[in-house]
């Protein structure tokens, strides 16, 4: 088994937390994991990209080759579109529908949504709205983890344990809000 995930979004969206949750869950199940991210300028509103590779065998490269990701998990629709060349034939796209318009020439959102919906296996999610309804606007990233849960080769319980572990030092309320967002995502 090997499962390659491209995580993409805009700086400050919590993409790295998602990577940590999935990676820890995979480690807890005894799987091999490699994760690679590009930082440096993402704090200044640039795109954030992490490659996450999970396998029951040896993983060599920390980065995913073009055309071979099992899943593109995007926190922003334009970023989902940008990283489609990494998707394998038969791979899935799960993307937040709400745009981050921190650039002057943000393309037509309708066209972006249409391009994503036209893919054979794609899911667009109102992650911000669902997170707000779940009680924490900042937990949109965990809604996406929830939505990805049934695609990932991991047990939901492993992901839940990783969420608890990651947020435990921020207190029970934060853990509960993130868990609720995760559950809301799973229900989609």
């Amino acid at each position: 088994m090997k499962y390659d995930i491209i995580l993409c979004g805009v700086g400050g969206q919590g993409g790295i937390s998602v990577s940590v949750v999935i990676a820890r869950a995979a480690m807890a199940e005894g799987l091999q994991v490699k994760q690679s991210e590009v930082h440096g300028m993402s704090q200044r509103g640039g795109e954030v990209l992490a490659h996450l590779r999970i396998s029951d065998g040896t993983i060599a490269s920390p980065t995913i080759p073009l055309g071979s990701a099992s899943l593109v998990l995007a926190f922003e629709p334009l970023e989902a579109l940008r990283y489609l060349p990494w998707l394998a034939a038969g791979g899935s796209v799960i993307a937040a529908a709400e745009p981050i318009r921190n650039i002057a020439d943000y393309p037509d959102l309708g066209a972006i949504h249409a391009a994503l919906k036209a893919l054979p296996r794609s899911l667009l999610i109102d992650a911000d709205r669902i997170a707000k309804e779940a009680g924490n606007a900042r937990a949109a990233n965990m809604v996406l983890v929830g939505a990805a849960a049934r695609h990932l080769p991991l047990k939901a319980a492993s992901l839940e344990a990783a969420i608890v572990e990651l947020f435990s030092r921020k207190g029970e309320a934060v853990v509960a809000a993130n868990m609720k967002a995760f559950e809301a995502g799973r229900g989609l």
Partner: protein
Amino acid sequence: MKILMTGNEAVARGALEAGISFASAYPGTPSTEILENIAVYKDDITAEWAVNEKVALETAIGASIAGARSLAAMKHVGVNVAADPLFTFAYMGVNGGLVLVSADDPGLHSSQDEQDNRYYAKFAKVAMLEPSDSQESKDMVVAAMEISERFDTAVLLRMTTRLCHSKTPVTEGTVPARSKKPYVKRLDKFDSVPATARRQHAVLEDRLLALEAFSNETELNRVEWKGSAVGVVSSGVAYQYAKEVFGKDASFFKLGFSHPLPMKKLKEFASRVGKLYVVEELEPYIEEQLKAAGIPCVGKELVPRLGELNPAIVAKAIFGTSAPTIQVDKSSVAERPPVLCAGCPHRGFFVELGKVKGIMIAGDIGCYGLGGMDPLNAKDAGLCMGASVSMAQGAQKVFERFGEKTRTVAVIGDSTFFHTGMNSLMSSVYNRAPTVTCILDNRITAMTGHQDNPGTGYTLQGAPTKEIDIEVLVRALGVEKARTVNPLRLGEVREALAWALAQNEPAVIVARWPCALKKRTEAEKKEFGALPLLCSIDQAKCVGCKACLRTGCPALRYDAKAKKTHIDEVQCLGCEVCAQVCPKQAIALVGAPNV
């Protein structure tokens, strides 16, 4: 139990397990997190930010001479700055072991060049190790210390961005109690006068022979035999890409100890395989040496010399194969280039500087390098750390000599000024160059992620320390015309620039305001106020003239249908730069946002 660590975290853990007691660095992507993670081990390691990479290596060398195991870390171009002590220390050898970590940046993720620092090991004649994942990054720091003390040599640990910032599993080892060798005065070893160095050069050449013999024996260089058809020589993260691409069908020579190369072992490997490939990132460092030794191999005629490799690039280069991909129309995916943040104190300064006519602006390395982009356009040249001030000096001298009226302005940040800018400014004073040096003091080393520096009042390990006053410093360097301004008050900046350009001697403007992303200390809240604040645009007054958009603030949004601009409340920090350029006075501070 295995723990996921970045390569940088693993190097830090390696420093702990290798018995290192002193570590120093100047921040620089992708190396910065090495010292940040070492700094946590306060009980075992003294960790410091140096003012530049030369100082970082020299303090580590001092620690080594005193008998402690030491480490210096820097990005690839930082080794250029530290090259002076590196080359001569190679002659001296060590007392306590010393490892120099060079973090190269293939692909220029965040750098001004993509030089291949493996050549430094060969040029300076020191041993080199090249890890290919986090486990090796940790283990090789330990190995480097043993090699350093056994062979009396500095060791270059060569990392790359992909290793530094990739998380792979690591099994931790034991942590030894700290100890140091006794300090013994050794003028014959640690004083690089010609008579000593002449003798030491011969010792160094013998040492390289001993290191090559070790290179042929060590398990750091290993053969993974999978048959005689195809052989691949590789090192670093390129080894991982090659493993993925060649799969199970090729034999590998995996280099971990790559200077001096294990030529005997490599020749033997080459003689056993039908076709030999070298897969390496950037320059043909291995390939050139194999070919010089008469070993036929295929390398850079197939594998790109430019940029970062990945499995797809290696597969295409070697086998001409590529996976089918979904084609995305490039015009439909707008780029998100890095921009000065909303509320960035540099913006106000650049709004005014960009309007001044008849000047050449020399920029420097830091966030303020972004001031050269549209719409601010306040930069003519940018080279390397500290170069703004000296380039401005040279250009000014030539403009004067040829009777041209062009004036030169240098733009440099606080940390970059401490790094090497202050030497240049002293040179401008000494040589009577009437340049204008603008020190954009945002109270932190910002671009690399907020590291302390001599201007912030804190050390790397959190101790309060002397805070260097930049205006006092420049006056001490001999600048008589110096003043400090608030860069967010455009009138103040405009007036200061006019005043500085009217001088016939070196002038300095210190623009003092904290980075918009910096968590303000209590003292800073007192001096600069608390954030965030919020500006708002009165839509009735806005005429859609876009004057505010020419500040390049990412919090401003133009609605083409309504022909009005509004402000994104989430991003705005209330710096009021846009309010000052609005010809209709439509923008005003409305207090703190409702968040």
